[in-house]
């Protein structure tokens, strides 16, 4: 029974990709060959080798050079890329991937199962912390023939497939890395992948140029001749660049949220917030539980109720993103809509603080907290100012501290803060991207671990159950239970399910076609005449 359902899943996995082309044809628009896409990349990545560097802009630009075995639809169904099909054994321990035929690296070498196994077991295992944690579960990796990869796990791991997107496990050429230090190999400077575009030129501080790879394995694709990423460091200059048509596409945090309404009203531009479902970043006020009185659940509940998430989403982010309702974003698997944090209620917040015995002084201040403003752009400063005002209404004084990205990362990593803002990718599954913030086994002096120091044995147990269960039903039960507990205990103050605006000229087609949006390979992207 299970076998046939999984087999069916594999067989129909090709459907979304085919449908996209059919959709386009149905609209009477045939893809057109030719043209150059000029867009923006900001901030400039240090290198374009996925794995060695995994920053947002790196994944966007290198996503055109490298490919993974799979990618994911907006509802997180797997879509074949370098893997033509795959099967999963009934016990959930054996994964067999059949690779596409005729795939070549940009230097002409054919891509085989050897490259795939090298990428998983050696390259990403060594350089990428996220892959290391998961791929350690692999017991055996074998290549029965040059186009088949068989991975045997030590235990079933249901979210395993999500690790085979390009952003998590790009397939790199074994012959250019094997036997070298992966971080310093020459190929890091001149990245070589299997993607539809090959690395052509990089004038630092100026632009990165990728050109069409003529031997790409999908016949007739890609449609574009070249993609040029201009490096534009100032957000107002970026806005002018898309407004005046000097670039045709902006992505990520290129455009400040407060500039989005003006761009929405321009007839030649399309603004979309789709294409972030795989990452589903969730933003929250990060509380350090070691700082009193943040260890008191009533105080955390009060802070959570003092904040108007609709205001934040509508007035600060201008509708880009939506209010958070629980620790798992609604676009991530196993989100339980019935588990909800309490809504905006200033009176109830005041009552909770009174009950906690925190009496206001003559100035109406119950206690003072420091807040480390997230140094990622103007909108985060505005958020900090809003939080200061709304918390002052219930008698909590917030002292804002400004900082730069280097100091922020160090201080959060060293637990040297009272409160700050953090946003964290969820990678499609709570085991991959949510668990790390709440389980006591992950309290580490490293960013994006459980830096807040929250600890609850019941929560640890439920996350462990969900991680180890092979059946999605059992996992859902555990995740639903943990969402209810976390909504009661509010270990972090979730604010918003973030999205980033993708803004493009209407001439540009298929800019967002998967759950990874602008991180996709762009082999189906084209410009109408």
């Amino acid at each position: 029974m299970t076998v046939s359902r999984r087999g069916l899943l594999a067989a129909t996995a090709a459907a979304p990709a085919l449908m996209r082309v059919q959709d386009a044809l149905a609209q009477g628009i045939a893809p057109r060959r030719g043209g150059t896409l000029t867009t923006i990349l900001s901030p400039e990545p240090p290198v374009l080798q996925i794995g060695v560097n995994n920053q947002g802009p790196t994944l966007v630009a290198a996503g055109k050079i490298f490919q993974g075995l799979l990618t994911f639809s907006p509802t997180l169904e797997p879509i074949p890329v370098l893997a033509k099909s795959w099967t999963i054994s009934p016990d959930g321990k054996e994964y067999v991937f059949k690779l596409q035929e005729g795939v070549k690296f940009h230097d002409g070498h054919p891509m085989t199962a050897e490259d795939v196994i090298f990428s998983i077991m050696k390259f990403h295992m060594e350089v990428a912390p996220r892959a290391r944690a998961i791929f350690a579960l692999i017991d055996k990796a074998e290549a029965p023939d040059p186009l088949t990869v068989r991975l045997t796990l030590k235990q079933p791991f249901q979210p395993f497939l999500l690790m085979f997107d390009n952003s998590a496990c790009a397939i790199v050429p074994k012959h250019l890395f094997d036997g070298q230090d992966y971080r310093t190999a020459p190929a890091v400077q001149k990245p070589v992948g299997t993607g539809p575009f090959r690395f052509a030129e990089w004038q630092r501080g100026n632009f990165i140029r990728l050109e069409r790879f003529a031997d790409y394995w999908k016949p007739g694709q890609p449609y574009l001749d070249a993609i040029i990423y201009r490096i534009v460091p100032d957000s107002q200059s970026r806005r002018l660049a898309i407004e005046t048509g000097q670039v045709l596409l902006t992505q990520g945090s290129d455009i400040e949220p407060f500039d989005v309404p003006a761009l929405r009203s321009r007839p030649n531009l399309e603004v979309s917030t789709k294409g972030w479902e795989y990452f589903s970043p969730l933003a929250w006020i990060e509380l350090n539980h070691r700082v009193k009185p943040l260890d008191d659940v009533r105080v955390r509940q009060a802070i959570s109720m003092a904040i108007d998430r609709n205001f934040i989403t509508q007035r600060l982010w201008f509708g880009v993103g939506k209010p958070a309702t629980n620790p798992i974003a609604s676009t991530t698997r196993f989100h339980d809509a019935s588990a909800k944090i309490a809504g905006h209620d200033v009176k109830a917040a005041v009552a909770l603080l009174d009950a906690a015995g925190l009496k206001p002084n003559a100035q109406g201040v119950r206690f003072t907290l420091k807040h480390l403003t997230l140094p990622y752009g103007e909108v985060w400063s505005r958020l900090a100012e809003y939080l200061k005002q709304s918390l002052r209404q219930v008698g909590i004084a917030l002292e804002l501290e400004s900082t730069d990205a280097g100091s922020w990362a160090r201080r959060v990593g060293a637990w040297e803060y009272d409160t700050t803002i953090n946003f964290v990718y969820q990678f499609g599954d709570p085991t991959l991207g949510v668990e790390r913030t709440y389980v006591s086994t992950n309290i580490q002096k490293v960013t994006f671990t459980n830096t807040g120091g929250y600890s609850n044995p019941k929560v640890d147990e439920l996350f462990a159950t969900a991680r180890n269960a092979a059946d999605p039903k059992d996992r859902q039960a555990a995740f639903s239970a943990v969402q209810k507990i976390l909504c009661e205990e509010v270990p972090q103050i979730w604010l918003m399910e973030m999205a980033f605006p993708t803004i493009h000229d209407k001439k540009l087609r298929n800019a967002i076609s998967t759950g990874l949006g602008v991180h996709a390979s762009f082999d189906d992207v084209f410009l109408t005449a």
Partner: protein
Amino acid sequence: MEASKLPGFLLRRAVKAALVVLAIVVCNFLLVHAAPGDPASVIAGQSGAADAVFLEQLRKQFGLDQPLYVQLWIYLKSVLSLDLGFSHRQQASVAQLVLERLPATLLLTGAAFAFALAGGVTLGALAAQRVGRWADSIITVIALTFYATPLFWVGLMLVLVFSVWLEWLPSFGMSSVGVEMHGLEVVWDVAQHLLLPALTLGLFYLAVYARLTRATMLEVADQDFVKTARAKGVPEGRILRAHVLRNALLPVITFAGIQAGQLLGGSILVETVFAWPGIGRLAFEALLARDYPVLLGVFFCTSVMVVLFNLLTDMLYAIIDPRVEVAG
């Protein structure tokens, strides 16, 4: 200045300059490492996922697992052998990163410098010649306006007018990318991109030079030797050029020397607003990323440049005004 004095002077100054640069290198090194955070934690913060092994690997690769004095010693040794080090973050040598950016910076700051100096001295001289008349008032008002306006605002306004409204000039970058161009087309293309940032950067200094030239020319014009020249019957134009302007240039040269020393440093603000791929931005981004070798490399180059231009300015004084003697 006697020719025989020059070699000794140059030698003494070179030794002093080397010591100054060395002291600067040490100070820079300590200052840069005093900033909180390190490149490994920055990368971890930007990657969205990290573990302790990852941080340890990076710190080891960057050489940050060594004690600070060992790192300083290693750095000093490499600087003394004219090796500026390696940026592990960008996987490239610092010299290469700096040299890549140098032409863009020199073009921008050089154009702005030439424009400011030529325009400023001309306007200042014109104003001094017509002191109290409407031309003087107009020049003074213009100079004061540019002197008082913040650079980034001027830049944004220029973009608004010339790129957005008139659509004459591109609003960012140094050249058109992805277009096949040859010879003069390339020059024309870069010139179009250069105009707005060079104007933005130059206008402030233009104002400074204009005000300085006008003030000192008026001061010199009252002195006895000018009256003597006039009494001798020297034509007015020649008085202005040979007697007044030449004597009035010394403070202008002092200031130009200071500005020239900063040519290499670029301008973070203008380079950022216009997405100009220069050294100022390289340094600023290196600071944010705690890319120590790159930051130190840029500091090293700019400090050498400042020292060099001070020397050059001192020698220029002697040429323009023979009464000034060079001394070590």
